[in-house]
């Protein structure tokens, strides 16, 4: 049969260098996404995961190129569809560790419907959104998280629309691990990602990952001056009211860290009786036995 996910004994000891992917990143020099890539590689190494047990799935956009840059199984899917593909893959083989990466336009814009429903289903995956508040690959248009008033090529007089705040949206949407990272704090981001991978359920790590080319407003420096770790502020991530209150903070002080976590809800694969015997669907023999066939035909008689 198929060589499989490693057992505890056969787990490899890897370094971050071993996690280098097929291709070198083609992001602009200074792009925040380098920080996410490094944090994710480090998280995988520190958790002792093997490259063949991780499936990294992305949509389309600058940040969605990430699967090609990391040594895991990967799928670089269509724009906005990564979470749907990831749900199918997770249910087909729930022994895989599923990481989904993408940008704010991919996840909160064109993929918004899947974002809502993947959260409410509490699919066991870790969703890292490299949120640069702008469309980069299409050379600078307004995104769902662009701040109101932002001037871009598609809003030359300033955006008049309200932006999405993904943190409270995720908390009420059913995500069971909701965090915000910043690529200027890679160690902190690494720990958030590790927590997300270890969490059984839907984990969102919205990450400020500034675009050095098309976003002159929300820059690395902007966030460096304002971000403050929740972990330093006695925030209790199991306290819903506190999580929502902190999620709405914006201005001179912008919180990063783990806003919300709950462990009392089972993930979709745990809830689905078809997976009760724990054998991944993809590894089960095909075909229907004679007794079942007879019973299916009897229904038609």
């Amino acid at each position, binding site marked *: *049969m*198929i*060589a*499989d*996910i*490693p057992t505890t004994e056969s787990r490899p000891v890897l370094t971050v260098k071993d996690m280098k*992917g*097929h*291709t070198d990143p*083609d992001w602009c020099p200074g792009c925040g996404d380098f920080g996410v890539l490094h944090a994710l590689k480090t998280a995988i190494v520190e958790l002792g995961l093997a*490259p*063949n*047990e991780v*499936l*990294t*799935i992305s949509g*389309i956009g600058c940040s969605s*190129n990430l*699967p*090609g840059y990391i*040594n*895991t*199984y*990967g*799928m*670089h*899917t*269509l724009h*906005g*569809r990564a979470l*749907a*593909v*990831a*749900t*199918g*893959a*997770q*249910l*087909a*083989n729930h022994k*895989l560790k599923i990481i989904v990466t993408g940008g704010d336009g991919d996840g909160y814009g064109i993929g918004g*419907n*899947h974002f*809502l*429903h993947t959260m409410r289903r509490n699919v066991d995956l870790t969703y890292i959104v490299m949120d640069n508040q702008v469309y980069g690959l299409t050379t600078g248009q307004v995104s769902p998280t662009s701040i109101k008033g932002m001037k871009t090529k598609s809003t030359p007089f300033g955006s008049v629309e309200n932006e999405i705040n993904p943190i409270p949206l995720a908390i009420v949407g059913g995500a069971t691990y909701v965090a915000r990272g910043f690529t200027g704090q890679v160690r902190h981001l690494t720990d958030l990602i590790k927590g997300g991978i270890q969490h059984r359920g839907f984990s969102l790590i919205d990450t400020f990952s500034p675009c050095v080319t098309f976003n002159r407003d929300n820059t690395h420096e902007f966030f460096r001056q304002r971000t403050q770790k929740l972990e330093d502020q006695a925030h209790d991530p199991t306290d819903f009211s506190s999580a929502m209150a902190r999620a709405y903070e914006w201005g001179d002080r912008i919180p990063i860290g783990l806003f919300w976590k709950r462990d009392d809800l089972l993930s979709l694969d745990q809830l689905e009786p*078809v997976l009760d015997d724990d054998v991944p*669907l*993809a*590894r089960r023999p*095909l*075909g*229907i036995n*004679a007794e*079942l*066939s007879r*019973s*299916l*035909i009897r229904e*038609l*008689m």
Partner: protein
Amino acid sequence: MDLAIGIGGAAGQGIATPGDILARIFVRRGLHLNTYNAYQSIVRGGHIFLTLRTSDRPVQSTGDKLDLLITLNQDTMDRHLKLMQRGSIVLYNADKIQPGAVADGVQLCPFSVKALAPKAKGDLVQNTIALAAALKLLGLDFKTLEDIITLQFQRKGQAAVDENVGVARAGYDYAAAEFNSGFSLPETTGKPLAFVDGNSALAMGGAAAGVRFYAAYPMSPSTGVLHWMARHARELGIMVRQVEDELGVINMTIGAAHAGCRAMCATSGGGFALMTEALGAAAMFELPLVCIDVQRAGPATGVPTKTEQGDLWQALGAGQGDYPRIIVAPTSIPDCFKTVPELFNLVDRFQCPGIVLSDLLISEGRSSIDPAELDFNVPIERGEMIGLNGHTPELNGTPYKRYEFTDSGISPRAIPGTLGYVHVVATDEHDEEGGLISDEFTNPHKRQAMHEKRMRKMEGVLSLIDPPALFGAPDADVTLVGWGSTEGVIREAIEKLAAEENVVANNLQIKWLVPLHAEHILATLAGSKKVIIVENNYSGQFARYLRSETSFVPDGYIRKYDGEPFMPHHIVEGVKQVLAQVTRQYVPVHEMLV
């Protein structure tokens, strides 16, 4: 013996129950059966008209005439009485329904619910009496009905059983005393048959093929596949998900297919439109899946509960760019069951999406089927999957080439989790190792080579699918070409043409649409005296496709696009008119207002 029964009323009047009871009685006696339900997108009200046709010979359509009409409301009487012909019977509740003008030789059979069941409450009693009277008219004994009613009502207690059996008895005895039909069902033709709708047959075909993942968004007329899958998911070990939209459906299916499951989804034309970009993605990833489009009358929301063969060009052109795909249109309800496992073996072998074009006629139509034809023990061939079938390539330190160039275009596939074959698949164009050549490392030569590798797979598919075979006399006066679901009605029309018009016709029915056995079809039609293409759409989608692949132009066309399926006499009339050169394109008028 060849008998057709029509039952009409409003949605919510409970037409399905007497229909199911009659159907089960017929197939248990070994009689063949074909049923079609004309209905609208309404939960209560409107006009529902169920036709059941039974015979001791196989029946492939609901035919041309009704022998027994059961009207459950005035509207049904007004719509259908005028079409009833000599020798037929009309059964109705005279308390509420008045007949109109009636043709000579039609027997009106009124009954009074008030007189026969004075104490009964509710409207369903009318159905019970009508059913009991109908069974008497068909020459069936009361015991058959008593057993069914007992089974149906025993959950509600003996009082309910007694009441309903009593009402049925009154209807049966009244019919025995007052009405006289010439109908008689043969006692038995041998072994009992099964009874299945096309959507269940598609779902069962998937189950037989080893589908482990099924996703859908509810959309008429494809929802029956979802219902069957959901009902059987746990006993069969199939992950069944109802998803937020069809974009999610197809992309979840892609995820499950890539992870190693046989994965399937179904929708109708509108949902299929949302799926098209992702079908291209499946081809670009080179992974197998089966997507069923149960066609309904379009465009847009169209006529959601009516049939059409209007999505051929949508399937041919689904998604941007050229990519390998297999398109197949099952030709009957039993063929729905057989087609899905065949298609899974092809898509697994050639690592590409497969599209099934069904339609409302065969997906929601029901047919008797010999249970021996429902063989779940089908061959399962998964193609070149690393770790399966001994196809594991030696790497010797070289990187695994997921998209290795091969003569067949097929590259061995590793599913995530497999040790040693880590790779990335992409919807961007890529090189043999899966590295993107759309961004930094653009390369027109690699792009050309990869495009050709993918498309090369279609030659292999063609070599494995059966060319269409001519049905009927090879030296016929005319060849009727159809595709998919029209096979049954075309073949009945051929019998009628021979019996009533002295015209010898044969049939070339196309099942495998892409790839198309174009040369074989051209050679076959070159031997035909006249060719008429019959299809259930406005523009002659198959005729235009055949012309684009072969330059072939037929002598005439028979088309229908009013939402209802062809009846045999529509095709007979079209053949007569085309052969007489009255017209090159015949469009029948559907006489029944349903």
